[in-house]
Each structure stands twice: as structure tokens, then as C-alpha cells.
């Protein structure tokens, strides 16, 4: 009765060992990853996020100069790692200098509000003159006014509050001579914080209206 058992264990060991070495043989040549995604800061210095997903999993990139690599659609993306400037140059060469001029793009202004109100903060009141100047100098026919709140309170309440904030700014623009049909108002309540926080955390930088002038 003992012999078959030993044989059985030997068989498992043999299988495990060869299985392992076979696997190692595949991994050791370390096939260079196929795709690489590298996050960079926006021209205004802000950094957004990209979400890289394969069938095997996903990673979030939110630090500038960090990259994830993907070897295969069925495997998860690698953990983000910093990329040296030299490597960046080797990989992407003159690509960035071929980018069209960003100067002609939209300009974004942020108006901040007092907690739980549609009242502008003192600093933000002073911003209106510059916004009006920009709209007039660009002869802009498209100005987006987008309302947001921080994460304190219910979704329904914050949606309404973000609407009041956006419409307050819209009213100010209209009373300063901007044509209503150039203004596109939208609001998202607590759904799109500028600074991600946990629910119910007060955050002044999220109580805002974004004015985007094209």
C-alpha cells in the first residue's frame, strides 16, 4: 500500500517542479511590454487621472511622470512606476514638440463659494472682471458654466445647490452684458469633486463653479 503513495507524491513533486520550471522559462526572457501609458502634467500644471483597464484588471495613474505597462490584454496593467527623463526621450522622442499650440485652447476659471450657499467668496468676486475681459477679447460664442459642491450632504440637495451656484454665476455674466445664448449651464452636485475626498468631508476647493471660455 505504501509504494503507490510514494509514487503518487513523487509524481506530484515532479509535476510541480517541471510545471514551475516551464513557467519560469516563459517568464524569464521577460518579453518587453507592448503598451506603455505615461501621465504628464497639463500645461497649466494641474494633473488629471487616467484609468487603464484590461480584461485582467485595472490601474489608476494620478502622478505625473509615472507610467503603467501592459503586456497582454488578459493580464492586469503593471503597478505605476516613475519614468526617467532619458527613458521618456528614448520612447517618445520629438513627439511632444509635434503637439499643436495649446495657446488657442479654452481658458478655465474657478469661482469658489461659501459653505452651503450660492455666495461667492471674497477672492472669487474679484475674478469676474478678468473673466469678462477674456470673453470679450476672445469674442467667445461659447462659455460653459459648470456648478459643483463638496461631499457634505445628500446627492439631491447638492445637485440643487450646484444648480443655484451655476445660475448665480450665469446671472452675473448676463447682467454684465454677456449674451445668454453664449452661456451653457450644467451642474453635477457632489459627483465631480476637484479634490477627491471621502463622503461628508467639507472641502472649500470643491464648492465651485467652473467657467470655461473658448
Amino acid at each position, binding site marked *: 500500500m505504501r509504494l503507490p503513495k510514494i509514487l503518487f507524491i513523487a509524481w506530484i513533486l515532479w509535476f510541480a517542479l517541471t510545471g514551475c520550471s516551464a513557467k519560469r522559462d516563459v517568464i524569464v526572457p521577460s518579453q518587453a511590454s507592448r*503598451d506603455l501609458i505615461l501621465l504628464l502634467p497639463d500645461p497649466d500644471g494641474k494633473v488629471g487621472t487616467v484609468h487603464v*483597464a484590461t480584461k485582467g484588471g485595472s490601474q489608476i495613474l494620478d502622478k505625473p511622470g509615472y507610467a503603467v505597462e501592459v503586456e497582454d490584454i488578459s493580464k492586469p496593467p503593471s503597478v505605476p512606476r516613475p519614468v526617467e527623463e532619458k527613458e521618456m526621450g528614448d520612447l517618445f522622442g520629438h513627439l511632444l514638440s509635434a503637439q499643436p499650440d495649446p495657446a488657442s485652447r*479654452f481658458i478655465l476659471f474657478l469661482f469658489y463659494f461659501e459653505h452651503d450657499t450660492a455666495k461667492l467668496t471674497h477672492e472669487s468676486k474679484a475674478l469676474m472682471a478678468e473673466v469678462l475681459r477674456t470673453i470679450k477679447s476672445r469674442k467667445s460664442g461659447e462659455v460653459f458654466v459648470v456648478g459643483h459642491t463638496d461631499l457634505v450632504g445628500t446627492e439631491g440637495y447638492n445637485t440643487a445647490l450646484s444648480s443655484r451656484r451655476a445660475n448665480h454665476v450665469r446671472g452675473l455674466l448676463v447682467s454684465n452684458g454677456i449674451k445668454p445664448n453664449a452661456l451653457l449651464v450644467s451642474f453635477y452636485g457632489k459627483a465631480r469633486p476637484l479634490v477627491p475626498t471621502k463622503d461628508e468631508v467639507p472641502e472649500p476647493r470643491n464648492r465651485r463653479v467652473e467657467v470655461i471660455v473658448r
Partner: protein
Amino acid sequence: MNLIGPRRLIFFSVLVFLLLSVTWEVSAIFASPKVGTVQKVIGTATVVRQGKTIPAIMGLEIWENDTLRTDPNGYMGVVFSDDTLLSLGPESVLVIDKFMFVPKQGKFSIVLRMIKGTAAYLSGLISKLAPESAYFETPTASIGIRGTKFVVKVEEEKN
């Protein structure tokens, strides 16, 4: 007894089909197909549209479903109508699978598919106003974009 016989049924379905195809064509004619403009070309680059290859020059209109290609010495920069900036490095192929920017109707969508090469992407208003509708696809991954700049390198799929 048989009010809607098989012949009538066929006649009506053909009629409905014809009407639908006419209205479809009309709406296709009235919607401007332009989604962006070529704003930079170094070396040789081309745009493949409905099977035809067009040399990329400054000011060339870019349409949905166009394929952008660059030669081994080519670079191309494109500005989309929502201010998204895209540039391609040498030996690159990218397809504009989807582009919609109609703020007054709240319609926002950008889906770019990279077949091979290198690209730099600076997001425009679509990923600002509707972050869940901006995607960059590679043969292995789907990249969701929330208002930012990134570069990507894609190796050609080997069969």
C-alpha cells in the same frame, strides 16, 4: 379575411426601409462631418477616409472614422473641435472611432483607437464636461481619461 397578406407586408417593410434610408442620408448630409483639423505635419503623414488615402497637410479636415497614419519620419498634430490636442509620432496608426461634441444637446463622446506607434494626448472639453465619455483604446487596454495629458506607446499586434 386576410387584411395584411404577405405581399402587403413585404411592400410595407420595403416602404419603411426606403423612408428610413432617405431620412438617414438627409441627416448625414446636414450634419457637418468635420471633427477636427490637422494643425501640424512633419515629414509624411496621411489620412485614410472611406478607403481613400489623402495626404495630410495643414488645415485638412478630420472626420469621424478617419484613420491617421505617419511614415517612419512623420509626425502629425490634430486639434479636435472640443480643443483636444493629439499628436502622433513616426510609424503610427490611429483610428477615430467616435467623436461627438454638441454641447447644446449635451452630447459628448471621444473614442480614439491606437493600432501602433506613439501618441500624445491633451484632453479637451469632452473629458472636462463629461469625463465618463472620453476613451483611448489600445490593442491591450482601454484608457479612461479625466482631464489630463498623457503619452502612449503601442506595439503592433503580431498575428
